[in-house]
């Protein structure tokens, strides 16, 4: 005769059909005459059925858009973390190592080493007064670095403008074509999918290149556009009608074409301002 405890311990396996025939029979016999264990069995069965039939995965709380962006967020995080992790100096690593050990000797040694390093730093500042030509050379070096960064920033913005222009042409083509005729013309749809694929790759490179805080809005637009382009690139021939409608809805909802136009206008205004400044500078000279 099995006890309630033994029976209840096996109820989960019983419900999962993971018991031997003998143990299963023992439970069948027991629950017929034991209301407590029968209630327990019923209670577990209901909970398991509810879980299987009606529980939703936590990930289902997130939108499809969220999941489309997830991998990109991970990649951005990897990039950010790798730029933040600057190589630590030998002395820094040594000090960390010693402090981690937390031994009195280590602290003493670390303090002595810190004092030596400090003394050396003061000494080198004292005797090394930079010559005027060295200051000029440092300042020229800084200017050269700034110039290089500016060139890179502008080059990426030009590339982004080109990308926006091409995407705009593609989207206007899709938005202004009747969905049915677009889907029926398979060659046109195929061309648009191929173009989107190229642009998606481009958008990934541009997004990672727009690192300056002043380029945040542009970066967001490039990413939003990238998501729409992914949808176009993944249009399936069998469900194209629905897919094209989703793309059109996404473009309208997010005001993508409006944002592209705005970006172009701002770029044109900036360009005319730059020209004005240039003229003014020349006339002053």
């Amino acid at each position: 005769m099995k006890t309630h405890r033994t029976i209840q311990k096996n109820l989960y396996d019983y419900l999962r059909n993971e018991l031997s025939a003998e143990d299963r029979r023992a439970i069948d016999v027991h629950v017929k005459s034991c209301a407590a264990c029968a209630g327990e069995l019923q209670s577990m069965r209901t909970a398991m059925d509810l879980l299987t039939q009606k529980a939703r995965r936590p990930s289902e709380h997130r939108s499809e858009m969220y999941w489309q962006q997830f991998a990109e967020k991970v990649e951005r995080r990897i990039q950010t973390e790798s730029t933040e992790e600057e190589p630590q100096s030998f002395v820094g690593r040594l000090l960390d190592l010693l402090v981690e050990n937390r031994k009195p000797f280590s602290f003493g040694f670390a303090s002595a080493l810190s004092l030596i390093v400090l003394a050396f730093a003061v000494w080198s500042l004292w005797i090394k007064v930079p010559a005027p030509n060295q200051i000029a050379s440092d300042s020229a070096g800084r200017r050269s670095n700034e110039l290089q960064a500016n060139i890179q920033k502008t080059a990426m913005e030009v590339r982004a403008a080109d990308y926006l222009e091409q995407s705009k042409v593609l989207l206007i083509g899709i938005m202004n074509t009747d969905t049915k005729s677009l889907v029926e013309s398979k060659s046109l749809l195929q061309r648009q999918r191929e173009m989107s694929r190229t642009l998606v790759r481009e958008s990934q490179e541009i997004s990672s290149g727009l690192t300056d805080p002043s380029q945040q809005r542009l970066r967001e637009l490039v990413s939003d556009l990238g998501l729409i382009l992914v949808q176009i690139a993944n249009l399936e021939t069998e469900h194209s009608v629905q897919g094209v409608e989703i793309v059109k809805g996404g473009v309208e909802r997010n005001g993508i074409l409006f944002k592209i136009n705005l970006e172009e206008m701002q770029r044109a205004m900036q360009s005319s301002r730059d020209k004005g400044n240039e003229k003014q500078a020349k006339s002053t000279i």
Partner: protein
Amino acid sequence: MPADRERQLILDVQEGSHDAFRELVELHMRRVYDLAYGFVNDHDDAEDVAQEVFVKVYHALKNFRQESGFSTWLYRITANSALDRLKQRKRSVARFVPMEESHLSGIAASQGTDRGEDSILIERALHELPTLQRAVVMLRHIDGFSTKQVSDILKCSEGAVKTHLHRGLKKMRKKLEHLKDSDS
């Protein structure tokens, strides 16, 4: 996805392919998120842990040997990261986090039926379970892992998994009854 494809993706990532890494992330992101949520019981934390897991995987894949199963390895990293997160924030194992209204209304709006109401009650009941019981119940009954797989992921015996399952389901049933009574 066939195991061969996954193996190929891992090799490609090890050779430096970003596309392969992206595909690998897209393949496992939902399950990693679900598992992380099972522990941390909070959507923002689950997001952060899931991202952190893939960053760790990206760096560790270089030394990953295909002898051990990738999924189990990935889910072990997830379980460890989620447990670390719990420790970091000094949360007790049975901590109760109020469930965000936006998530509840999101489910109701998307379903709007009896099934929707039941889903909300189940989520509330799960939400109130102690961490390990919730994680085990979700892994086994929502994610569909076998008892053996759950024990591998959590590095505990199958007997311990069954005990958590038994207790978790029992508590869940009681909580569901209580929630249904208080709702009606």
